[in-house]
């Protein structure tokens, strides 16, 4: 098992090396003249259908996105509990079933509250 994790680490190294090497190769191509590299003010201006940009791009954003982020955190942590439960479900039997039913029902109450409060509505 540990050897397998070692292989995952090895793959991670290669996976990082691959984009880095291709980006470097592309860079080297520009030095030997195969690839053009002539930036100009117009070329590197923000692409907005030919218009000059007005104001900053890094603006404040709708708060709605954070509702979804909060809901995501709640349900994602729930799934962390669900996975080990699912593996051992057949050994836990009825006790595990009812226990998880109660756990999910508590979350569902919050979910229904969010639904009623129209948090899930995109406006």
């Amino acid at each position, binding site marked *: *098992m540990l050897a*397998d*994790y070692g*292989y*995952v680490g090895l*793959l*991670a190294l*290669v*996976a990082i090396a*691959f*984009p*880095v090497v*291709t*980006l470097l*190769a*592309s*860079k080297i*191509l*520009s030095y030997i003249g195969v*690839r*053009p590299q002539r*930036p100009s003010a117009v070329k*590197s*201006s*923000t*692409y*907005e*259908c030919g218009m000059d*940009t007005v104001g900053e*791009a*890094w*603006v404040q*954003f*709708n708060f*709605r*996105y954070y509702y*979804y*982020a909060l*809901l*995501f955190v709640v*349900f*994602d942590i729930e*799934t962390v509990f*669900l*996975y080990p439960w*699912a*593996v*051992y*479900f*057949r050994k836990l*039997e009825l006790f595990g*079933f009812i226990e*998880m*039913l109660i756990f*999910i029902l508590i979350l*569902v109450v919050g979910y229904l509250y969010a639904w009623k409060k129209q948090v*899930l*509505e*995109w*406006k």
Partner: protein
Amino acid sequence: MWDTITNLLPLVGAALHDFLYGFLPGWLAYLLLGFIFIVILLVSILNTVLAFIWLERRGISRFQVRLGPDRVGPMGLLQPIADAVKLMTKEDIVPAGGDRAVHYLAAVLVFVPALLVFAVLPFAPGVVFADLNIGILYIIAIGSVGVIGVFMGGWASNNKYSLMGAMRAVAQMVSYEVPMVLSVIGVVMVAQSLSLEHIVQAQELPFILLQPLGFFIYFAAASAELNRTPMDLLEAESEIIAGYHVEYSGMKFALFFLAEYANALAVSIIVSTLFLGGWKLPLVPPYIALPLKIFAVFGLMLWIRSTLPRLRVDQLMGFAWKGLLPIALLNIFITGGELLIFKGYPSWLALVNIPLAALILFIWSRLFTIKIRATATSARPAPSARNV
């Protein structure tokens, strides 16, 4: 003889293993074996990705009654390679005022998880790069890292369109993550393992028949994660040009593009493994069965992509939170109940589960359409007043 044919891949792997460990010190053989497998994995992934790109372009052209790329090579087969050469030799632009380092880092960070997912996918009995006993959990954990790269790319571009695309991407991927993760739990409960190898072996009958609801939810949510057309709001050309990668060109764009198709390949393999029986197919050796299934799943995604129009933002978010999430929770308890009543989870349950899934989907979609119509008829704010 037949055994040799079906077990060709593990036999070659074992022979290589014995050969290397025969004359090299242990650690060197371990590393060398790892690198050989990585090279094989990388080459096959990249080739399949190129095949997918060709298939997608030709396939969509056929769906739209046009020819598609047919100039480069026979039937345009060399088109992806020509594209790769073109992207490699294309000028690389970092927009003025953009964050240079983050702009580069985003392309790397999108690509790395797309490749790492393949570590635990089984290709034949015993042929898996790293047989982790937490396979699915690993896939889900690694798969959600890509969102960060997408957001970094959108943010670093200093472009309003890419920032909007990135915000939409995060909202969409985060929302569909939840039903996707929940839908796999039914499979895990039946297979009693998180290792993909064990899950394939547990499928006497493909889980698509025993877990049709789980398959539907996983497929819908995974294609939303892939940002393919019915749900590609984050790169909606007609609204925000190309979303988070507007400002990308050259090799960095190629990395985004490769990562997108590598993810599509990963999802095709995961769907085949979890629900279609992986490398299992009667009378067909594993190394032919799995590619057949992968291309079938990808063909289905292609079909959906060229058939359905793009959703609206509120429909998209509503589908995740009000449509898929409740049925995903329901699916867990239906599976749990069935496992309690019928201990062994017999195969005839497929006859119960398929109509049940159809019924649940039908009832839920009825309720859901009424909801949408009700909001559509009530006074909606004008589109201009709506936020991104």
